[in-house]
């Protein structure tokens, strides 16, 4: 009687297991689809954007099927280590702190961040000039690290949000005076829209490796060395054969997002 139920249990377990493809026939890719124009969804709910297209191109290179899994940003790395997906291709910056938890491929783009605030606030971008203002940031992002590290101490109120587009909603609502965000992302996702008319950049482009790391890469688990290798090779390939450039031109014509 007991043996039978053990056997049934084992069969049930085996049936619900998806075999982890060491030949990588299928790669589950995590995205946070609230980061226009890098990662977002069409009204019908289909993932799209620069990150998504790059992910698709990489999967095509390594002859695997890309399955997109949506994930809230601050749960990205825990989800990867918990094996909910195999890779993160969602504008995740390569930082020392993150490298302690996961491995990264080489970068597939690099853009600086900048502070964006209401145009009628006079500021030169220095933390002191923003004292008393409310700045919204994405929870778990490099921009949040920067804001907590540099701005909070200078008397700026830093408010973490679970998605960058929620930051823009509250900026539009007047609950926030500004944000710290990726230059390209905030341009396409906010400043170019009617809501962003009264806002502008201040200060210098922010590139401190201490907070922002060194470009954006594909994150994989430390144990999946083989996946990291094939992804690295694929990135080099699409840089070389022009597919990377094609995707970059589709979303950012005339802008160089590869960086130095």
């Amino acid at each position: 009687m007991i043996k039978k139920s053990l056997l049934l249990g084992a069969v049930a377990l085996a049936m619900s297991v998806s075999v982890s493809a060491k030949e990588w026939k299928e790669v589950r890719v995590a995205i946070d689809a609230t980061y226009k124009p890098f990662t977002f969804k069409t009204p019908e709910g289909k993932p799209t954007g620069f990150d998504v297209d790059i992910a698709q191109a990489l999967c095509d290179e390594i002859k695997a099927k890309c399955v997109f899994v949506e994930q809230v940003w601050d749960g990205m790395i825990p989800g990867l280590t918990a094996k909910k997906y195999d890779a993160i291709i969602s504008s995740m910056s390569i930082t020392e702190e993150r490298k302690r938890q996961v491995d990264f491929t080489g970068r597939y783009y690099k853009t600086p961040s900048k502070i964006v605030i209401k145009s009628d606030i006079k500021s030169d971008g220095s933390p002191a000039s923003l004292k008393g203002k409310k700045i919204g940031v994405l929870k778990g992002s490099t921009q949040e690290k920067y804001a907590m590290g540099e701005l909070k101490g200078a008397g700026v109120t830093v408010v973490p949000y679970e998605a960058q587009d929620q930051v823009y909603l509250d900026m539009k609502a007047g609950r926030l005076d500004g944000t710290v965000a990726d230059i390209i992302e905030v341009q396409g996702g906010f400043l170019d829209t009617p809501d962003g008319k009264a806002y502008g950049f201040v200060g210098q482009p922010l590139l401190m490796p201490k907070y922002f790391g060194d470009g954006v890469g594909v994150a994989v688990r430390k144990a999946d060395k083989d996946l990291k290798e094939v992804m690295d090779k694929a990135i080099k390939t699409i840089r070389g054969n022009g597919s990377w450039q094609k995707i970059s031109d589709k979303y950012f014509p005339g802008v160089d997002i590869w960086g130095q």
Partner: protein
Amino acid sequence: MNAYLLNILQGSVLVVQVALGSLAVAVVLGLAGAMAKLSAHKPAVWLATVYSTLIRGIPDLVLMLLIFYGGQIGLNAVLEAVGYTDYLEIDPFLAGVLTIGFIYGAYMTETFRGAILAIPKGQMEAGRAYGMSALQVFMRITLPQMVRLALPGFTNNWLVLMKATALVSLLGLQDMTFLAKQAGAAARGEIANAPLLFFAFTGFIYLMFTTVSLVALRQLEKKYSMGVRRGSF
């Protein structure tokens, strides 16, 4: 605009699935818990009491976060310790259903226990006196009456459970609430008052679910109350 609304409507299917799945789990756990609490075995009573007290003393959201985030990590650790290298994923849907079912099993335990206690004991005694086995007494005498007596509490628990499914959006599960929130932010430029519209739409769908449930359960109550004499006011 219609594409967004349609997308949210698809999320409502997920809500129904989560709610019904959780209900099944909750009813099973509730019956087991009620039997345990009413049984003669002290350890069973103790376990069931701890279960229902603890669960009702902690917010749903905290339990959900604990089981969802902690559960996968715990499962992975157990599997690795056993030497199983392939992954076994707790699908977000499964996590939501198990969690909500687990939580509302505690409330159902109290409801079923109250209902069973309300059945005149003499009836069960008479059944045993006639030579019915414990199982027969349960199936033929206790259960039908328990259903009738538990219906008000059951209806209440079901309505609360159904609304609790909105919390799975906070786990990242793409139900109506999650999609409405995302769409509200994404459409902020194109559609005026997008967040208000999408949330109101979602609320309206929940209201529909509530109404349908109330009507259906009221019919059920009438059916099971046939032949029961009620005092007149």
